[in-house]
């Protein structure tokens, strides 16, 4: 596929969640993978603001513990929190120059092999919802074209997140929508842990099995996770016969 068609497909995929079986987990996962696929970046993650005041990771292209830890250094302060608070994109072309400012983030990034960070706000009209983090192994700024595209992809995902009724989105409903997505993410993480034990596999692999199951059976990933956690669904459906317990 050429670039133009790739771009068109990416926006269609992000808008596809207008369908009635909307799944916020799939939306955020698509967003980060689209960012990594279309932009000159090595990793991407998206965080949204919890009503309690911190940022929560909703999806990331990497699932290792060290990478998750890197993101967690940013839940309270850091470039993402700044981006969320100001609603403005920002770039850090070389993270080693920022050691004093971000004493936890800098070593975490270097340990994971990243040198540059770019962050764009996830926003609905002018209301900030969170931020997208883009990471690069080499030093340097994101190109202007990539920076614009990143923002356009983020805007598209934010619109999809909110486009759930014919009523115009009110501030009060935005909170509901974002918190509901966070609750779905929580259920997914618990379900991953269950599947990891039942299948005797790593948590990351458990996540992939769940995602594959939902895609293959055309069911909502959020609903599948919730059914597992509430024990209305048998985990062996996803991992076969249990041998881990």
């Amino acid at each position: 596929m050429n670039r133009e068609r790739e771009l068109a497909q990416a926006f269609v995929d992000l808008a596809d969640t207008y369908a009635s079986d909307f799944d916020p987990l799939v939306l955020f996962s698509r967003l980060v993978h689209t960012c990594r696929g279309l932009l000159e970046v090595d990793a991407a993650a998206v965080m949204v603001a919890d009503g309690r005041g911190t940022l929560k990771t909703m999806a990331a292209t990497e699932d290792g513990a060290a990478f998750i830890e890197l993101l967690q250094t940013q839940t309270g302060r850091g470039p993402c929190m700044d981006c969320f608070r100001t609603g403005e994109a920002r770039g850090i072309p070389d993270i080693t120059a920022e050691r004093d400012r971000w004493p936890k983030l800098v070593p975490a990034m270097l340990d994971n092999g990243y040198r540059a960070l770019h962050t764009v706000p996830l926003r609905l009209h002018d209301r900030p919802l969170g931020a997208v983090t883009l990471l690069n192994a080499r030093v340097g700024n994101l190109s202007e074209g990539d920076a614009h595209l990143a923002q356009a992809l983020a805007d598209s995902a934010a619109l999809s997140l909110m486009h759930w009724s014919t009523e115009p989105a009110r501030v009060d409903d935005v909170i509901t929508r974002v918190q509901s997505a966070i609750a779905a993410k929580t259920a997914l993480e618990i379900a991953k842990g269950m599947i990891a034990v039942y299948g005797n596999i790593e948590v990351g692999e458990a996540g992939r099995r769940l995602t594959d199951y939902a895609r293959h059976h055309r069911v909502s990933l959020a609903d599948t996770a919730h059914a597992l956690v509430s024990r209305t669904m048998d985990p062996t459906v996803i991992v076969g016969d249990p041998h881990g317990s």
Partner: protein
Amino acid sequence: MGGDAGFGGGDAEEETDLQRARIARELITAVRGLPPEEIPEALCRSCAALLPSVAGLSVSVLGDGPDSAVVLFASDETATRLAEIQYTLGEGPSPEAVRLRAPVFAPDLRRGPDVRRWPLFSDQAARAGVAAAFSVPLAGAGGALGTLDLYRETAGGLDGDEVRTALLVADAVVLAVTALDRASADTAGVVTWLAGAESDREEIHQATGMIMAQLGVGAEEALLILRARAFAQGRTSSEVARAVIDRTMDMRHD
């Protein structure tokens, strides 16, 4: 990187943790040492003091299904009535908050989208003198355990600080109700325990699921087991969770 000063640049996580601890301490101090039958009323007074900008509030706890709930406490008759209307009709912000496991707000029950969304509830709420209703789920590990419901006699939404306080009060009510009897009886011990009992992190959710599968327990109990282990070993819940995920700790073996 000029111009970075001046966007309220404190650490949001630390601020939230401080406020969380303050609210939990207030609620726990209020109920400590009371006989069980007096706990709901004491919790109610504390919650009302923490949320002075609303006319009244109630906490309902779910029964067997999402449509059956009992009012654990309410600050007044209107608050009780409001909760009962919603759970009886199965309509309104509270049942919706349980279903979505997210806060649901109806800032104006007399006109506009809220009336179209909940025609029966908004009519009855208006008759009871309620103009705005806000429902926050009591977040359990696996789903909503009930709701914290607030109301106002004039239309209008909650501001950001009020939303944040309401969410933290709901968290503290869950802890006070589910965890009190598991922790030590003195306030200092409980607050220390709470400080290490952070629950809203990825590794804790994953470890909760692993313990559920290992021990065949529900999500709430798995999380309590994880926290109890952390408290007993003087570690944080996150540290214990990582050990469970690495499989260097297995709750089945001890």
